[in-house]
């Protein structure tokens, strides 16, 4: 049993809260409540990243997921207003169960106590995860995939505009 240090203490609080809020995503009947619980989960995971001294990932997590994608989700939910959930279908229950089982198996294999070889847990460089380092690897080592991804996003954007125009 490890001794309780301050970071560990915060980790348990944050981890517990994020597990609780992610359970709320699944078990809430009200869709808007579910969506807001998901926002809370994403935010708490971002704070976990912050405690791991990875502010870049934390900020991107909030920026992209909590601040942009979930807002669109919420918009759709509010406009379609599905206040009453449809009846549970056995097929979905089955699929969900299989997916959960697979995920649990994966977690068990990940968490099983196989000690990592010493070489793989070398301390990270001071600059690791900083915006400079991220930009450096994006624009040097991965510049082609980066540009291809941006073209893909542009195509998706134009496609969305074209589809919207056709409807009107």
């Amino acid at each position, binding site marked *: 049993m490890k001794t309780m240090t301050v970071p560990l203490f915060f980790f348990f609080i944050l981890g517990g809260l994020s597990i609780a809020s992610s359970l709320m995503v699944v078990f809430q009947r*009200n869709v808007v*409540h579910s969506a807001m619980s998901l926002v809370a989960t994403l935010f708490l995971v971002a704070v976990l990243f912050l405690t791991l001294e990875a502010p*870049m990932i934390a900020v991107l997590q909030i*920026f992209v997921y*909590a601040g942009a994608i979930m807002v669109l989700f*919420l*918009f759709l939910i*509010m406009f379609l207003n599905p206040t009453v959930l449809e009846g549970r279908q056995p097929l979905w229950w089955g699929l969900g169960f299989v997916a959960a089982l697979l995920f649990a198996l994966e977690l068990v294999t990940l968490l099983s106590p196989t000690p990592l070889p010493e070489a793989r847990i070398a301390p990270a460089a001071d600059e690791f995860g900083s915006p400079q380092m991220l930009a450096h690897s994006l624009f040097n080592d991965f510049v082609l995939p980066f540009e291809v991804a941006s073209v893909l996003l542009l195509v998706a954007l134009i496609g969305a505009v074209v589809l919207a125009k056709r409807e009107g």
Partner: protein
Amino acid sequence: MIVELGIIAAKAALVLFMVLNLAGLLGWIERKGSALIQNRIGANRASIFGFAGLGLVNTLIADPIKFLTKEDFIPPHGDKLLHTLAPCLALFPALVTFAVIPFGDILILGERVINLQVANLNVGILYIFAMASLSVYGIVIGAWASNNKFSLLGGVRGSAQMISYEVAMGLSVMGILMVYGTLELQEIVRGQGAPLRDWLPAFLKPVLGWLPAWGIILQPVAFLLFFTAAVAETKRIPFDLPEGESELAAGYHVEYSGGKFLMFFAGEFAEIVTAAALTTTLFFGGWQVPFLMRDGFYFPWGGSLLLPHLAVVVLQVGAFGLKVLFFCWLQILLRWTLPRFRYDQVMRLGWKMLLPAALANVIVTAVLIVAFQETR
């Protein structure tokens, strides 16, 4: 360890104290300022137990008491939980943004060097935009939980407006980041302390080289774009479409009263303070006083005036406060001077004017930096 934690807690408490009190004070300044502009007297009837002597103090105390003692009405078919949560979501982002804004350089106390900034994150400005992107929730959730058509329309308008102007705001800052080459706000402010001659082509150096390299001088277009977008983000006239009284009653907070309305109200004023502080930090040198170095003034025409360390710190923090106050006042002035836009005009301004202009500014800045890189 304990002392370090204490210092951080003290800095956070000080910043929160200043922001919240300035937000409260701005409520009074707005009422008196609007009266000044419209040739009225303004708030002058607050008396506590018949004592009206201290005009300002009385109003400042009476306003919150009035808010807090009024009925807190929750619409019967609304969502009780989210209706209560929404004002908190509206106030939270405006307050936490301040964590990365530097309000001074460094304070040396004995052996200890204290960075006058609550959290020095290496992602700096990205943190601010991440927090700003969360402020949509207060409006959307408040609007939906009220179960009122005017509310929902206001909420939809508000979130569309905020998302649109966030894009222009983020892109307009890009020029500043490129010029000073960092995301950290403290470093951006330090970069603005250097003389302008490092940035200028040779023939301009003797003429303008003595000016401090503030953001407004290096990136004037970015300043206009950023300030416009920042005012639009606060959802006040001329961009107050989410709560346009003549169309939507009061928009997303039409069903709010009492303490919860006070929180929306305080959130709006905290956003004003945040916008002012950001404008100051990015474009007006933050805590920099022209020609003031860490040990005193060094004037470009020769001559210097050495000052003790504490005086320098007080001057810097004071300068930051004054600049922030100026931009708060400018936003109040804007609100009581300009007429309201139409909604389609707001959208057109955001997407068809600010966004292309910000993109053009990024490209021009990049070209200029590459062109003059040799000379620096």
